[in-house]
């Protein structure tokens, strides 16, 4: 039971603010989030220094361009993933949605559809993919971990069926140039520009709108969110649909960047996306995290991969670094003594309608 006698235990009588605890409050409540982002910022600086030390090419604009181009899609997919994880769910089907939309793009292009119509179809595909995830999670009440493992296989399978072993590579240069040329009059790759715009939008939604506040609430305490009248199901469904749409966009970008549509585009990248989001300080349990942190994590991740690339470090083995960073990102909060027990919400069931 509550230690309710504390209520009257301080000077001032009823109605006055209690100034006494301010110092302690400040120390303890100094958002662990800010500490995380500061740590990330330090990490980014460290990586930049490391990169500059190992290779003279690191700090060139050409290299910056390359880094942006190769990491762009993961960065873009990390944005809706951030919101989904904060809301207490997870979406492991992101890379498969990317692959599926890449496959559709190639498939329709081979059938001589006009590119604009193809874009519409690919967008629709992304929306449907997200809708399937969202409905299974909110209406049927299935844990998003299980659902998105299933759709991960299903969507990759669809990509396989669409393209088979074929590769489509005859895309018009106007599109495939995004992988090679920056935006006119700038040094910025298209990927990075798109990422920046999306990051701002997602950041505003998450941190400044009622929906964003609701997302934090439902992640931190799904019952309380429900009791506060927050439309949890609707918001979660929209998050999955957004993720599907954004991943479809990533699929298009990936295809044009590589100038190739092949069924295994993006294969295995879902785990990298989750890793980046967790590294950004988002708690796997939901309810905590910031978009700024994820942006920093994206930069750290991209920079690190690039630096290692320049040193001819075995590309596959960069996984060790990613894995290590991931472990650090989850053990560090535990050291700040935030003990939580139990299963993250995306692995639990919920009732199909209201509470049973």
């Amino acid at each position, binding site marked *: 039971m509550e230690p*309710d006698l504390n209520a009257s235990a301080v000077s001032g009588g009823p109605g006055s603010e209690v100034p006494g605890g301010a110092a302690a409050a400040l120390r303890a409540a100094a958002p662990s989030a800010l500490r995380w982002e500061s740590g990330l910022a330090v990490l980014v600086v460290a990586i930049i220094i490391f990169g500059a030390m190992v290779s003279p090419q690191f700090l060139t604009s050409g290299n910056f361009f390359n880094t942006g181009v190769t990491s762009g899609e993961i960065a873009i997919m990390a944005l809706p993933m951030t919101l989904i994880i904060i809301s207490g769910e997870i979406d492991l089907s992101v890379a498969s949605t990317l692959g599926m939309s890449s496959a559709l793009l190639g498939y329709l292009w081979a059938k001589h559809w006009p590119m604009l119509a193809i874009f519409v179809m690919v967008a629709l595909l992304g929306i449907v993919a997200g809708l399937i995830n969202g409905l299974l999670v909110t209406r049927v009440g299935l844990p998003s971990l299980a659902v998105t493992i299933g759709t991960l296989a299903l969507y990759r399978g669809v990509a396989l069926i669409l393209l088979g072993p074929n590769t489509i590579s005859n895309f018009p240069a106007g599109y495939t140039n995004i992988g090679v040329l920056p935006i006119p009059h700038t040094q910025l790759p298209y990927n990075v520009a798109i990422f920046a715009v999306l990051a701002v939008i997602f950041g505003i939604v998450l941190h400044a709108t009622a929906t964003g506040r609701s997302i934090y609430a439902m992640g931190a305490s799904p019952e*309380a969110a*429900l009791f506060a009248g927050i439309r949890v199901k609707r918001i979660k469904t929209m998050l999955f649909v957004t993720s599907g749409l954004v991943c479809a966009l990533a699929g298009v970008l990936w295809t044009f960047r590589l100038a190739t549509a092949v069924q295994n585009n993006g294969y295995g990248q879902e785990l990298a996306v989750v890793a980046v989001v967790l590294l950004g300080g988002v708690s796997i349990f939901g309810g905590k995290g910031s978009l700024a942190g994820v942006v920093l994590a994206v930069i750290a991740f991209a920079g690190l991969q690039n630096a290692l690339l320049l040193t001819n470090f075995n590309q596959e083995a960069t996984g060790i670094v990613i894995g290590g960073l991931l472990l650090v990102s989850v053990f560090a909060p535990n050291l700040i003594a935030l003990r939580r027990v139990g299963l993250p919400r995306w692995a639990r069931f919920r009732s199909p309608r209201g509470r049973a």
Partner: protein
Amino acid sequence: MRDGRHVLTSELSGMTADDLVRAMVGRQVVQRASSGGHEPGEEILRVDRLTREGVFTDVSLRVRSGEIVVLAGLVGSGRSEVARAIFGIDRYDAGAVTLAGQPLRKAAPAAAMAAGAGYVPEDRRQQGLVMEMSVQQNMALASLDRLRTAGLVRSAAERAFAADWAQRLRLKYGKLTDPVSRLSGGNQQKVVLAKWLGRRPSLLIVDEPTRGIDIATKAEVHALLAQLAADGVAILMISSELPEVLQNGDRILVMREGRLTAEYGHEEASEEKIMAAATGQTEAQAS
């Protein structure tokens, strides 16, 4: 002791419960007169034959503006389930809910809120509050749509809103940005109340409003509810504490194993009658 000071030393004999409470609280705890002294207004909530298989059956009740209707009964009699079904957290299988004259969609808390209902749940830590969020954020959680311009929540407006209600409810806190987990039980309950009162509801459902909170805050909450009723709010209260039931209820409905078994007005109600209806024993057996 009260507020850190020693206020009274006395032999137990000769002291009444009232004396003790007065010493602890520092002021007279006033027994609410029937209907708070005013006539209830129009019907705000009407529940017709609400049924959820295996949980509650054929529950019908009415709450009018300015009335406090208390649902009494033993733990497990289905009262909270009825309340949750009315507000839309749970489904129901049969029956209808009418709020402010309009039929209320089932299983849609947002619709209930839009029609003017508020719900202070039984479990404030799991259901009433997001413990990780601040006092300010919790208070604003049900009113976000009213605190924004062009889609963006204005933190200044949120802060002002919270500060206003903290003052009205005499909340004891460090800073509005403190996590709400740091407050005492009584003050946490005030935050939950503020969250709903900030919406100016026409119907307020409160489930065990003073469970686990100290006497002084308990008295404040009761006074607050009385004041709300006087201002025209319809209140449906669920309580397992007989003194609270008797003190606050204009009308007292008793549930047992999912059904309504009795209704008493403020004057005619007594502990024995309520316990009898709640347990199914005769009055003589229940006393």
